[in-house]
């Protein structure tokens, strides 16, 4: 099992200036990466003999109002270490390379983010309607300023 320092050192050596460590908490190793290198990055951490991270638990999207953060949670079954990878894409019409060519399990997560946040995953094999109703035509609903289909905003309480 590689500790946090070793993992980050390996990554920074391989991708200098495109990877930087971010502080979350002592138990969670986290890095911020350049969106251009995602596919190469995941290929590297999957195949490197000291990392072998191939188990993708989840991919999240976060609407930060200035941009959308895509957060990957990946770990290694063999070494039992894990890594959180953050990357930024544009808020409207954002594009990022798919990692489903490297890790098959990313397919549905990416499709879900495409549907709920409108981020396009370039090279994804099947970016089609997924979890939303079949007749949905009101755009990605998880954006913070989205309103549509009988949406009722929570009133300010006590204001």
């Amino acid at each position, binding site marked *: 099992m590689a500790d946090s320092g070793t993992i980050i050192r390996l990554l920074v050596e391989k991708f200098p200036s495109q990877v930087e460590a971010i502080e979350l908490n002592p138990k969670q190793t986290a890095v911020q990466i350049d969106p251009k290198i995602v596919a190469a990055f995941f290929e590297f951490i999957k195949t490197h003999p000291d990392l072998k991270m191939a188990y993708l638990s989840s991919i999240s999207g976060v609407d930060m109002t200035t941009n959308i953060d895509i957060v990957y949670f990946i770990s290694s079954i063999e070494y039992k270490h894990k890594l959180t990878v953050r990357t930024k894409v544009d808020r409207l019409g954002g594009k990022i390379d798919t990692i489903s060519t490297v890790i098959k399990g990313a397919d549905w997560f990416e499709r879900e983010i495409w549907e709920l946040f409108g981020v396009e995953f370039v090279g994804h094999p099947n970016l089609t309607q997924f979890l939303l*109703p*079949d007749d949905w035509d009101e755009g990605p*609903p*998880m954006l913070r300023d989205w309103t549509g289909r009988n949406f009722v905003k*929570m009133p300010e309480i006590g204001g």
Partner: protein
Amino acid sequence: MGIISRVPVIAEKIPGGAIVATSLEKVLNISRASSMWYLLFGTACCAIEMMCTGASRYDFDRFGMFFRASPRQADLMFVAGTITYKMAPRVKRLYEQMAEPRYVIAMGGCACNGGPFYYDSYAVLKGVDLIIPVDVYLPGCPPRPESLMEACIKLQEKIMHEKLQEWSSDKRG
């Protein structure tokens, strides 16, 4: 359905026919109210409470109620859980597949009006009464099994007051 709702009209012309009609009405209502078979259908947490009510501790069977896994054999539908816009057409379809007379109990806040998901939700239908008619509304998140039984007793009372002439779904209030 067609013939039975014409019985009172025909019977009233015969001397003493009204007695036959009201007795028939009563017998039919009792048999309906005491064997409401419900559809085995639940979409969220409320369904757990529905299962609990059906299990031995609360024992729905003593009301003559037990679940059927097919809408064709069910008289009653508990809308037990959150109905999303994606689920809504399926719920409607299940309701339409049930044989008449059919009854609906909207169980829990979600089925009554969207409940905890009323605000800030893009996915949840704001009340199942927007797509199908509801007989009894049962608030709670989730309602206790006792409340669900109370709702069934209320529905039985409602069935006991049905008139023969109204034995068709379009006349039901």
